[in-house]
C-alpha cells in the first residue's frame, strides 16, 4: 500500500509546479521538501535512542562549506554539494565518539552546545566566513544539461523545486533503505536494551556514532542546497529555534513510523503558509499542537489511524461483552 501511495504522491509532486499560482508557493514547497529531509534524518539519529539537537549546526556547516568551496576554491556546485555533506558527516563522526558516550539528556545538551559553537565559529572566524554578516552573492548551481536537450540554469524557482524534489526523493530512499536494513534493526535494538545488545556482540557505541554520522550527512547536503538557493548564508540562519522546529515536525508527525516526520514536516510547513491567522500565531499554535500531541497522541499524527483502530476495537469488544 505504501509504495503505490508514495508513487502517486511522487507523480503529483512532479506536476505540482505547473499548477501552483506563483513563485511564492513554489518556494513554500521547496521549504517543505527541505524540512521533510531534515525531520526524517533527525529521526534516524533518534532511532538509536539519542536525541540530537545538532541539526542546526550541521546545516550551517553544510551551507558555509559549499559556499566557500564554490566561491573561494572555484569548485562546481555539483561537486561542492556532496563534499559539503561528507564534510559535515566527517565532523559528526569526529565529535560523535565523545558525545555518544554521554547518557540521554547530557548528549542532548552537548549537541545543543555543538550547534552554538558552530554559530560562534561562523561569527568569529571573519577571514573565512565573513563574520556576523555572513556570505552574500552565493552563485546559483552551475548550469546543467539533461539528456542533451533540457537546459537548466536555475534562474527560476521551479528549477530549484525539481532539484529539491530530486534531493528529497534520493534522501528518503536512502534513509528508508537504512532503516529497513539490519542497521535499522540494530539501532532499534540498541535503543531498547543497550547492554543486552552489547552482550550479543553489537558495538553499540559504534552504531550510535553511525546513526549520528549518517543522520548528519543530510543537513549538510541540504544546507549546501539552501545557501545556493537563497544565495546567502549567515551565522544565525539555522539557529537553535530552527533545530527546535525540526524537532517539532518530527514529534508532531510521529517518531515511530518512517513517514511520521514526512507528514509532520509537510503539514506544519504548508499550513502556516496557507492560513494567515495561523501564521500570525504560529509559535502558540505549534506549542499547543506539541502539548496536545504529548498529552493525547504521543505517537504523533502518523499514529492516529492506529489509535482510532484501537479505540474502535476496544469499543466493539465492549459492545460485544455487554
Amino acid at each position, binding site marked *: 500500500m505504501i509504495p503505490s501511495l508514495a508513487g502517486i504522491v511522487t507523480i503529483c509532486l512532479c506536476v505540482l509546479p505547473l499548477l501552483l499560482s506563483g513563485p511564492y508557493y513554489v518556494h513554500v514547497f521547496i521549504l517543505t521538501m527541505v524540512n521533510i529531509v531534515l525531520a526524517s534524518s533527525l529521526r534516524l539519529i533518534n532511532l538509536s535512542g539519542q536525541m540530537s539537537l545538532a541539526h542546526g549546526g550541521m546545516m550551517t556547516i553544510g551551507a558555509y562549506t559549499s559556499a566557500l568551496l564554490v566561491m573561494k576554491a572555484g569548485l562546481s556546485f555539483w561537486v561542492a554539494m556532496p563534499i559539503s555533506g561528507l564534510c559535515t558527516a566527517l565532523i559528526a563522526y569526529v565529535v560523535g565518539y565523545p558525545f555518544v558516550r*554521554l547518557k540521554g*539528556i547530557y548528549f542532548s545538551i552537548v549537541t*545543543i*552546545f555543538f550547534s552554538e*559553537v558552530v554559530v560562534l565559529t561562523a561569527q*568569529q572566524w571573519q577571514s573565512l566566513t565573513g563574520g556576523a554578516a555572513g556570505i552574500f552573492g552565493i552563485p546559483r548551481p552551475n548550469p546543467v544539461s539533461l539528456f542533451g536537450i533540457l537546459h537548466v540554469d536555475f534562474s527560476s524557482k521551479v528549477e530549484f523545486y525539481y532539484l529539491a524534489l530530486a534531493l528529497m526523493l534520493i534522501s528518503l530512499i536512502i534513509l528508508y533503505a537504512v532503516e529497513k536494513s539490519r542497521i535499522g534493526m540494530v539501532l532499534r535494538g540498541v535503543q531498547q536494551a543497550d547492554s543486552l545488545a552489547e552482550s550479543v556482540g553489537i558495538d553499540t557505541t559504534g552504531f550510535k556514532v553511525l546513526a549520528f554520522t549518517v543522520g548528519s550527512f543530510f543537513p549538510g547536503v541540504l544546507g549546501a542546497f539552501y545557501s545556493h538557493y537563497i544565495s546567502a548564508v549567515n551565522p544565525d540562519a539555522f539557529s537553535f529555534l530552527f533545530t527546535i522546529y525540526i524537532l517539532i515536525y518530527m514529534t508532531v508527525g510521529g517518531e515511530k513510523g518512517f513517514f511520521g516526520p514526512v507528514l509532520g514536516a509537510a503539514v506544519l510547513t504548508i499550513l502556516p503558509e496557507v492560513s494567515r491567522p495561523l501564521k500570525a500565531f504560529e*509559535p*502558540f499554535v505549534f*506549542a499547543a499542537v506539541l502539548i496536545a500531541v504529548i498529552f493525547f497522541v504521543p505517537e504523533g499524527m502518523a499514529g492516529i489511524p492506529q489509535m482510532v483502530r484501537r479505540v474502535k476495537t476496544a469499543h466493539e469488544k465492549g459492545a460485544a461483552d455487554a
Partner: protein
Amino acid sequence: METTALAQSVLNGLALSGIYILIALGLTLVMSIMGIVQVAHGEIYMIGAYSVYYVVAVLGGNFFLGIVVSTLFVGGLGVLLERLCFRPFRGRADRAFTISIALILILQNVVLALAGGNPRSFSSPFSGVVHLLGVAISWKRLVIVLVGLGLLVGLFLFIKLTRTGQAMLAISQEREGAALQGMNIDRVSATAMFLGCGLAAVAGGFIGSLFSISPTMGSFALMKGIAVIILGGLGSIPGAVVGGLILGLVDGVLPALTTTHIAGLVGFAAIIMILIFRPQGIGGHEG
C-alpha cells in the same frame, strides 16, 4: 595594564561569573534532580528580568524589592510548571523535553505580545563607584558579586542543613538509587524547580541592571548556562560554580587584555577541547 583597569576588569569578570553561576546552578539543579533538559530555562531567566523591570520601572519600586518579588514570582511559576507539565512525564525525558520546547515558544511569545520586542532597561540604584583598596570600582557590579556570593552560601547551607537539601544532593548524584530510598520526589522536584527558577530570575534581574532586556535574551542565558555546565561537569553542582567562575572571568578580563575577537575564541576554544576530549567536563560524571 594599570591596576585600576585590571581591577575593574576582574570585577566585571566576577560579576559575570556570579550571573553565569546563578544561571548554570539553576539549570543543573533542574537537570540533575528532575532528569530533564529544561531548555526553557533561558525564558525563565528572561521572565525574571522582566519581573524586576516591572517592579522597578513601572511600579517604581526598589531594586532589591524587585529582585525578591521576581524570585518569588518566577520560583512559584517554576513550581506550577513542575506540577502541571513535568510531573506527568517523570521518567520520560524525551516527552518532558518536548514540553520544554513548547514552553520556550509560549513564554517567549507571551512576553513579546505583552511587552513588545523593543529592548528595555532599568537602572540599578547602585550607580557610581566605590573605593576599595585605593581602586575605584563599579558599585553595581560589586553588589552583584556580593549578593551572588550570599546566595551561593545560602544554597550551600540549604543543601547541607535541610533534609530536602540533602535529598537534592543525593538525587543529583545518583538518581535511580535515591528514588529507591523513599525520598519524597514530589517535594524535592518542586523545591529544585523553585530554587532553579528563582536563581535564574535573580540572574535575569542582575543582567537587566547592567545591560538591557528583551524577549529574546533567553537564548544567551541558555547557551552560557550550557557552556558552564559542560565546562564544570555535567551533573555536578560544584562544577557549575567552578565553570561559571572560569567563564565569567574569561568573558570579563580577556576583552580588556586582548581584542574582543580573540577573547570570544579563547572562551569557546577551551570548551571545544573539553567537548572532544572530556565531554563530561572538569568535575562531572558520565551521567
